[in-house]
């Protein structure tokens, strides 16, 4: 603050503070707070807004419990409301997407940070970035085409003789997972790359010299060092996946529902912004809880991630 003042003078310093404050207060906190407030009020005709019926309650939140369907949770058959079911699936598969992006990004970032010669790095990063230039919609549709029943994937597999009959790929959650992994893998890769790049290569060599096999070097030296990077990547991928609307909409099927689609349905089709807001906040809160829980289990501090 004082540093800013000394460096840029009075005018610019207040401009920075003012703009940051405007962005936070007017564009983030205020609209969110409005939604949060309205999530506790009933959905009423305009004439009744502010009337005797317009009282605070958690009825909107309880709407998630309407109806019953069967669901199998870790081998247990339970009856559960369809919205809760979609909600749980969204959290579960977002976690799975996060894990898969980690499995892909870890070896890749290790290769980029420690193996490849620095000369070819710019080219490799460019190759990684190119898909980001294409919009998310196009990329999702590209996967939709690849995975289509008469699409190229089935075609190639049949031509190679791996399968005899077309497989219906776009069914259940698999295509959604594929799409989300493809869309968000770079959000895992870059923090992981940054973390690994900051590891002194001598430590890897020292572990090697002391007799450690490659897997133990990863387990005891590289992985612990990369933990903050993994955490920051995982938080991003998990939050983005759980909040993704487009990928599940394009690559989803009748047997896959994403909670964002539920929220969208309530807000845009039922026009019930109050319940929609309640559902959105539920997703936000539960996702935050899941992230906090994961951070507690893996002993990561928030300050580690912010680095």
């Amino acid at each position, binding site marked *: 603050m004082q540093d800013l003042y000394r460096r840029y003078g009075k005018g610019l310093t207040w401009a920075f503070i003012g703009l940051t404050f405007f962005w936070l207060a007017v564009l983030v906190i205020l609209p969110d707070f409005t939604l949060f407030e309205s999530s506790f009020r009933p959905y009423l005709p305009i004439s009744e807004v502010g009337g005797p019926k317009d009282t605070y309650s958690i009825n909107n939140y309880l709407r998630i419990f309407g109806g019953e369907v069967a669901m199998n949770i870790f081998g247990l058959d339970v009856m559960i409301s369809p919205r809760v079911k979609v909600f749980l699936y969204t959290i579960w598969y977002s976690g799975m997407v996060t894990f898969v992006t980690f499995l892909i990004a870890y070896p890749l970032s290790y290769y980029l940070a420690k193996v490849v010669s620095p000369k070819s790095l710019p080219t490799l990063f460019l190759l990684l970035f190119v898909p980001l230039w294409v919009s998310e919609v196009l990329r999702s549709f590209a996967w939709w085409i690849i995975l289509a029943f008469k699409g190229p994937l089935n075609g190639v597999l049949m031509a190679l003789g791996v399968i005899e009959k077309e497989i219906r790929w776009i069914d259940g959650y698999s295509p959604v997972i594929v799409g989300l992994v493809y869309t968000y893998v770079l959000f895992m890769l870059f923090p992981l790359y940054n973390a690994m790049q900051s590891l*002194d290569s*001598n430590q890897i060599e*020292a*572990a090697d010299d*002391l007799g450690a096999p490659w897997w133990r070097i990863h387990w005891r030296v590289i992985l612990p*060092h990369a933990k903050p990077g993994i955490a920051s990547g995982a938080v991003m991928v998990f939050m983005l996946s759980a909040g993704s609307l487009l990928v599940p909409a394009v690559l989803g099927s009748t047997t896959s529902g994403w909670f964002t689609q539920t929220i969208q349905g309530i807000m845009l089709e039922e026009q019930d912004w109050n319940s929609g807001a309640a559902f959105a906040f539920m997703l936000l809160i539960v996702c935050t809880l899941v992230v906090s829980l994961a951070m507690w289990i893996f002993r990561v501090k928030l300050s580690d991630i912010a680095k």
Partner: protein
Amino acid sequence: MSASIELDNVCCDFGNFRAVDHVNVTIQPGEFFSFLGPSGCGKTTILRMISGFTEPTGGVIRIGGKDVSGLRPNQRPTALIFQNLALFPLMTIWENIAFGLEVRGVDKVTRRKRAEELLALVDLHDSADKMVSQLSGGQKQRVAIARALAVEPAVMLLDEPLSALDLKLRQHMRAELRAIQKRTGVTFIYITHDQGEALAMSDRVGVMSQGRLQQVAGPRDIYNNPVNGFVASFVGENNILKGDVQNASEGRASFSTAIGTFTAKLPDSSAGKDLKLYIRPEHVILSAKPGAENSVPVTLTEVAFEGNFISVHAVTENGTDLVAELRNDGAGSVPTPGTQMHMTFDAANSSLLPDSTTAGA
């Protein structure tokens, strides 16, 4: 446990650059051997080749008589101490030290016990459960040594491990390293660009320049009987005079220079080469009257009091600069600039040397 190291015609090329050029040396078991040279002379490459991180492009390395080519670092009986130590910051001190044992599947109780024994060996008690960041530079140094000793290596390789420490600590750690080496009996190979460090600690020193080993000898010989100008200049200061050999016999020669003809040692290795006269400043005697031989009249130009010695710069009649170093005995008066005096040196303390024994070879 210790082992000999044999470098047999070892070369290492990086593309067109020859980092190590036909190095031949045998290091005895239990010896403290230093490779001394300026940065970029190839000494670190030699260390990396012995430890297995770099493969030689020519020649053979034998450890304990066995050819180690193709063996991975973790298959060699060597332990490397890195210049920046490369301690694991996310492990405690004892976990650091016991890492090599953990890798070998030693159980936790034994590991802990061994780590504490090693901590005692390096004089670092009660630090087992601290983190690396809580230790001072010298303490980290000891942890790195203990970690390397834990795997009971036959050979310890040290890559300028003292360079990050301050002067006092560095001098203390020299003695410490030497003592640990004596206690464990492990062969130590030490890399440094600090001639004081190499001379003070080593049994033998190998001086390197441009990938070649210039001279291998005990510290005294390196300093008193350098084989060429490079070694003489790298391990100490010199007055260097150009001139021609007049007549040589029995290891001595008279040498005519622009400021007179002097007698000096003529090492066998110098025969038949373009030579210069090297005289160490501390071997120059300053007196009011000329000495019996090898004496030259000078005018003092600058007298610098350095504490333990006094550095006297002087100029001869024809403008040649000479330096003498006088020991500060506490009583003697310090000469003043402008005084006319004589500089004399003993033939036994001055050598006729080529610039480099390998130049043009």
